[in-house]
């Protein structure tokens, strides 16, 4: 298979190993392939969500580090630029949550009493867990600020 000898093939187009010995044109994937269809673009957007989310978590780490400076050295985030940055990150984070939890329904197979749970139910459970987790974390972040 690995050898491709350039020789005239009397059998060209007759089935058996028709690619061998024939000059073939090889395509190359263009670098902008992901701009060609909406699906590809949405896929790349989905993968890209990792970048803004990573930046935001690095900021969170920095804010935790700041707490070590003492009351005088700590300044809470209040700038408009930070709010704008967070708003953009939130859009990406929501898109990540929506796509990832929805795709989990395709992957996870759960059997109860020998019957497969329909993917729709699994997706609903994931979105339910998202709501529950958000309520708990939101509660802690707000309740303990009193």
């Amino acid at each position, binding site marked *: *298979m690995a050898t491709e000898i350039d020789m005239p093939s009397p059998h*060209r*187009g007759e089935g058996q190993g028709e690619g061998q010995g024939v000059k*073939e044109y090889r395509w190359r994937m263009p670098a902008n392939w992901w701009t060609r269809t909406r699906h590809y673009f949405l896929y790349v957007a989905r993968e890209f969500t990792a970048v803004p989310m990573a930046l935001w978590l690095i900021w969170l780490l920095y804010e935790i580090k700041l707490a070590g400076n003492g009351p005088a050295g700590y300044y809470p985030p209040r700038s408009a630029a930070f709010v704008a940055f967070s708003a953009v990150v939130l859009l990406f984070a929501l898109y990540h949550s929506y796509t990832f939890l929805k795709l989990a329904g395709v*992957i996870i197979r759960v059997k109860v009493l020998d019957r497969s749970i329909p993917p729709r139910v699994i997706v609903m459970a994931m979105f339910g867990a998202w709501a529950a987790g958000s309520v708990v974390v939101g509660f802690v972040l707000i309740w303990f600020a009193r």
Partner: protein
Amino acid sequence: MADKRVTIQATRYDPDRDSAPRMQSYDIPFYDESMVVLDALNYIKNHVDGSLSFRWSCRMGICGSCGMMVNGTPKLTCNAFVRDYWPRAIHVGPLNNFPLIRDLVIDMDDFMHKLKSIKPWVIRKQELPLGAGEHRQTNQQIDEFRQFSECINCMLCYAACPVYGLNNEFLGPAAIALARRYNLDSRDQGLKERLPVIGDAEGVWECSFVGECSVVCPKGVDPAKAIQQTKLDTTMRFVLPYGNRD
């Protein structure tokens, strides 16, 4: 009706003359509402230009040989109605991501080798004698894998897969879906023989779940699902205690 015409722009490539594929336009009658792109290609071949080369066989979405790019999307041309594109011109090209042999004919050797590499047949540790009767299955056991057995090897999923386009070493959607079809079959005992191929770096781990393979599949096989489930199952085999047993 007889006056309607449609423009077919077909990719032409003659390995003896052309250094790169070129486009040729054909203006043909749109003679029948039920006309499909394959009918248009056959009309060109029979009445306009006999040198146009393409593969086809059954005309009814079963054989899987007439897959081509129709306006940039992988389609079975026997299943793509001209009326859905008319009055715009229809661009017909060879399947993406495969080497081009001539006009609309691609080289499928790579796919054939990959198909073979996952051993797409029922593997038994020990064959039972014929007298022992057939391997019986319940409806539930069949439902486990039925969806993945619908594949007709049309290679549309490979043409839709950017991962395969970027790296031809990738095992690819149809082959992994077929591997899963046999791994889920209650009669099969060949998981360990397939695992080195599907669990390889160029196997399921190369897939980044674009999901376009499942979108273009004319048979609803959902290879993307097969690949992600294989990732999860293989992981669980190693994560769970005793998961690696037979």
